Structure formats: structure tokens, C-alpha cells
């Protein structure tokens, strides 16, 4: 089952490699991982999307907590949360394709952020299933390039992760 784990950790050189090393050393999956400093520059916030049985997820959160530089760990999927991923897709856009691509971008509430004679670059934000749906909806052969940030997650309402 898919889990989204949010980690608050010291913004120190090497902290990221400890997390990644833990996943590879213990054979856990990383579907996606994003990390950046928070409003407090001494802390980084990481979102890890992973899959595994309940036992595996329990071990993952325990082992993350064991890392000296990790301050807090929360499995967001245990409660209500919001998930967003930014995706940029460069698509072929020639002739009547141009109109079709524009329409598809509109339907998915995407924005065209770069235009050439032959291509559009479309920016989409949403949970991963929405971004997947967009890629499925357009003609596969028209996709020139895709880049996705991986999911970032945050708890809903009063669920707050901070020091």
C-alpha cells in the first residue's frame, strides 16, 4: 500500500544520504523523495513516497526516527492529508495538435509556460493520479519530455508537523 511519510530533519550535509542509505540498506522502496529547507533554515522537510505492508512501514518510520539527524517523522497516510506534485511536460504541438493540447491543458487546469513553433511546455500541479491521468489522456507519441518533482505532502487542518 502507498504511504507518504513526512520527515523533519536537521539541514546538514549528509543527512539526505543517511535517509537514502537506510532505504537501500534495508531493502525498502522509494517511489519518490523530495526535500528542501523549511522557513527555519536549520531544518529540512522531506516527503518520501513508499510502498510496503504495515509491518514494513512501521519499521521504516522506526528506523527513520533512529537516525540522529531526524527530528520528527509522520506517516501522513494515517490521517487526512493533501498531496501535490509539480509536473512539466514538453509536448509536440504542430498543426491542429496545438489546439488539442491547449484544450487538454485547460481541462487539467495546467498552464502552458513555454511555447515554440513545434512544442508547448505544460505545467501541471496535482496529486500523482491526476498527473498520471493527464499523461494517459494525451497521445503518448506527442510527449517529448516529462519531469516530475515527486509528491510533497502536508496534513489537513490541525495536523501540523513542526519542532
Amino acid at each position, binding site marked *: 500500500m502507498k504511504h507518504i511519510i513526512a520527515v523533519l530533519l536537521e539541514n546538514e550535509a549528509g543527512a539526505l544520504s543517511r535517509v537514502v542509505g537506510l532505504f537501500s540498506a534495508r531493502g525498502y522502496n522509494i517511489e519518490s523523495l523530495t526535500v528542501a529547507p523549511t522557513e527555519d533554515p536549520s531544518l529540512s522537510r522531506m516527503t518520501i513516497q513508499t510502498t510496503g505492508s504495515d509491518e514494513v512501514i512501521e519499521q521504516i518510520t522506526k528506523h527513520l*526516527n*533512529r537516525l540522529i539527524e531526524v527530528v520528527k517523522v509522520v506517516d501522513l497516510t494515517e490521517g487526512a492529508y493533501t498531496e501535490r506534485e509539480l509536473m512539466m511536460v514538453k509536448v509536440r504541438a504542430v498543426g491542429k495538435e496545438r489546439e488539442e493540447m491547449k484544450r487538454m491543458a485547460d481541462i487539467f487546469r495546467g498552464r502552458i509556460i513555454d511555447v515554440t513553433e513545434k512544442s508547448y511546455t505544460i505545467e501541471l500541479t496535482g496529486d500523482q493520479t491526476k498527473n498520471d491521468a493527464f499523461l494517459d489522456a494525451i497521445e503518448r507519441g506527442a510527449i517529448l519530455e516529462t519531469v516530475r518533482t515527486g509528491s510533497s505532502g502536508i496534513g489537513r487542518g490541525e495536523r501540523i508537523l513542526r519542532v
Partner: protein
Amino acid sequence: MEIAKAEVASASNPSNSHPSAKAKPAAAGAEQELRGAEVLIKALQAEGVKYVWGYPGGAVLHIYDAFFKQDTIQHVLVRHEQAAVHAADGYARATGDVGVALVTSGPGVTNAVTGIATAYMDSIPMVIVCGQVPTHAIGMDAFQECDTVGITRPIVKHNFLVKDARDLAETMKKAFHIARSGRPGPVVVDIPKDVSFKKVPYHGYPQTVEMRSYNPVRKGHGGQIRKALQLLLAAKRPYIYTGGGVLLSNASNELRQLVDMLGYPCTNTLMGLGAYPASDRKFLGMLGMHGTVEANNAMQNCDVLLAVGARFDDRVIGNPKHFAQNERKIIHIDIDPSSISKRVRVDIPIVGDVKDVLSEMIAMIKESATKPDTNALGAWWDTIEGWRKRDCLKYDHGQNDIIKPQYVVETLWNMTKDADTYITSDVGQHQMWAAQYYRFDQPRRWINSGGLGTMGVGIPYAMGIKLAKPDSEVYCVTGEGSVQMCIQELSTCLQYNTPIKIVALNNRYLGMVRQWQEVEYEGRYSHSYMDALPNFVKLAEAYGHVGMLIERASDVEPALREARKLKDRTVFMDFRTDPTENVFPMVQAGKGITEMLLSAEDL
């Protein structure tokens, strides 16, 4: 994440703004300028370090110069960095103090890796100080450069690269704090050469340290302990299974008190031997792959299991599916939450320091009106005594005065049981025989590599212990295979006058490999026979020690007696033992712990 470029910039310009130290400096100590190396020495002195095992090299020359100018810490020059870490590790296991090793960059570090991983697997508190090439040379493939932090990351509790000498005192404080608190473990501190050379203002060693991201629990949850106790007192077939955590937490007395109050049977893992006295009737022996019939059967058939500072290792519970066939409630006390429900599902987890939790449990039992069910307990003990009657450690003494390895260990035990004796071992058959036939009645007397199973630890462990315990007898029970992996340390033993006694059970085979090949590979002894063994007697003499060759069972006792008399000499006893002897009981890989082979007839 802080990016590498920013790191390089701050490293090349040390006058950059400096993050304020979180640790509070000592009140005393007027400001003075010290070199990084001197700050390091001050830190080691403040931590009460008495011995450092190490090996010099280019990147640690400033540190060695600082060692030269002080006389409170004794440095022991080993012959190979692996042994430096093992010796400091052995010292830590025997004393409970943090063991300290010092190695140079590059090959110094890579040689130390086996030692660090060994300590990590057994949760031994250590600080390993490594030299590193100067900060400006890092990443340039400099001479003797390696990515120490990267190489050691998976085998340490934590590691640091100190890029600014002003951070050194605080980093050392953190390193010692992390190493000895919570679930202990080795911490590596990597110090570039320019950092150990640079002069910086020194305000004294920090007295306290605060880390918002690291606050290990000590006290267990009162409610959980109460629930555990209800379960434990209502048990019909209770069993107490304890591991290395009891020793690490110095909770041996509490364990003894608890077992005595309850009258329940108790077993220790390989790492936990000595936590409960082996000579006591309530002790069922070691459990696991080479555990006793009674210890393993009780593990499988108990209805309430109290696991204390143990981690349900694959060598302990065998096949987890087989283990799960019998229903039992499990209470698990451990300081590390990730050890709980890792291999088996636990009903009542208690996260906390073993000593604290057991003390609280004992206090609650004293107050409790509920007492153990004596009828049920009596029946359970009858069952256990039935298993014990099998006398699974009985062995055939053989004919023609052949030396049985078990006999050597038994004789050693009989001779030294009343003295303060430390037994180290290497890894293999001899290790199991030592664990089975030497009865450890005191904690921290059995020193071996349990988790990683590192051959070669025996001699360095023994010399590390002997330095700390000069009045105790220290024996290294080893094999002719293992002992050759760190035999160069015989030289260190002479230089530092650490007279140890080496009991080599020489069967001319890599015995445990040969045993598995016999059991699992139809006797195809692939590369487990050692031809061209050295003459160990002459080898010992070449190193300036005493060598003895013992070939007959009737000579075992006189030889040990003679070696014991040579108090001030290191003695290498080469016992030529029965080459075909195997360790029994044995649980084959993949089998359940009650599916034991009991003797050669079961093969």
C-alpha cells in the same frame, strides 16, 4: 539540503560566520588558543579516556604530536588498524566505558571498517577518531584519501566530518554522548589534517549537550509495564529470554532479582551470557542454533515470553514460521523501538532502558498481591527437567587420549571458575564450545563477536581487556583459523605487557565451515582444510612469548596449569583436538529451533 558547493565555500574560508554552539561551554577555563589536535586531547581527557588504541599516519601526525606532549592517556600502538578497533571494543565490552581508537585516513580507515562494523552489530559504545586529508584536498583524490563518512555510514550509530576546528570540542562531546546513550554504538569522528593543525580559541570542554533530534528514552511506560506484569504473573509456562541489552544496561543484578522473585526459567543469548548465573538451576543454558534442548524447547513451548534486551535474531529463533506455530504472548523490553516487532509480532512492547524497566517491574511485583501460579509453574518445571535430563551437552570423551575440544573448555572452566576470569573468543566451533561449556556466572566476562561474527577478534579483545584488568586472567579461546586473522597483535601484547593466554583448539579445519559442509553438502569439504599451518609454538616464541603444543587429553590439565602459573607471560597453547568433532545441538538453517540435531548419529 545544504549543497556541496556551500560546504566547500565555508571550508575554504574558515573565517565565515560560525554557527553558534548549541552546547554550553564549561564555566571554568579562560579563553586560550589551542590547535585542533590539542582540543581533541582535552576532549578525550575530559571524557575520562584512559587508553587509546591506534596507528599513526600522515593525516594524524598533528594528533600524534599532541599525544606525545601529554601523559594522562596511554596510547597503544597496534600492528594493524583492525586490531585497534577490536581492542578498544573489547575494552568497552569488559568495562562498560566508551572504547576509543585512532586511525589515519584512507587505508587506516578501511582497515578499521571490520572493527567498526563488529562493534555496531553488537551495540558497543565507541568513538573512532580518523584522520582525513586537509579540507582543501577533500574530493581531489588526494594521497590516502577516502570518503570516510560515506564508507562508514551504514556501520556506525553516527558519524561526523569536522570541517572547522572551532566545532571540534562540541563534536567530540556529541560523539561520546551518542556513543554511550540510548542503544549504544560506534561513532566516527573524521578530522582533516588542517583542522587538527589550526589554532582556535578554546573555551573549555562543553559540560552538557543538547540535541533536539536525539533524545533517547530511559524510563519505560508505566502502564505498559503494569500490563506486562499482569500477563507475566498469570502465565502457566513463563520464560525469560535475555540478550546483550541486559549487559549493556548493567542490569544483571535487576535480572537476577526478578528471576529469583518469580522463580521462572531463564535463558541468555550468545551476547547475553553471564547476565544470569549459568550455574543456577533456573538457567536453562544458551538458546538458539547451538542452544540446549531445554532452552530451545522452553522457547517454543512457553505461553508468556519476556524478552529483555534481545532482538529475536535469526540464530536465536530459527525459522520464524516454525516459531509462530505455537501461540504465546510476547513482552519485549528494548531501548530501540526498531528492534521491537522486527522479526516477530510483540504483544506488549516496552521501550526503555532495561535497568530502569526491570527496577520498576521489581518494585511493582513487591507491591502486587498477585503471585505466580505455583501449581502451573511446578508442572512447567517438571516438563523442563524432562528436557534437561536429555543432557544434550554430554559428549563422548573418545579413545586413545584424543583431545576433545569440549574437554579443554570444561577443564579451563573448572580451573578458573573461582578466579576473576575473562574469556574472549573468535568465531566458529571453538566459540560455540566456549559459550556452551564455560559457565559464565558474572556479566561482561564473555567477550565475543555475536552479530557480525568476525574472525580475528579474540587476541585484540583479550589485549584490550588485559590492559584494563591487569589483575584478572584473560583467556582467548580460538581456533587455528581465526587466530591467524589478527595474530600480528602478539607483538603488541609483548610491547605493552598484556600477558594473555591463548587457548587454540586446533583441529586443522575451518571447523564450522567443515561442519556445515558435512551436514548440508554431503561432506564435500571445499577449501575448509588448512594445509601448511605454521608451527604455533615457534611462532609464539618468535614474538617473544611462550608456546606449548598439547596433543594428549591427559596433558590438557597440566598444560593449562603451567600456563596459568606464567602470570607475566603471554602463552600460546596449541591444543591438537579431534578434527572430526562437531558442535551439538545444532539447528540447521531454515529449521525450527526445536528441530535439533543432537549428535553425530542424527546426521
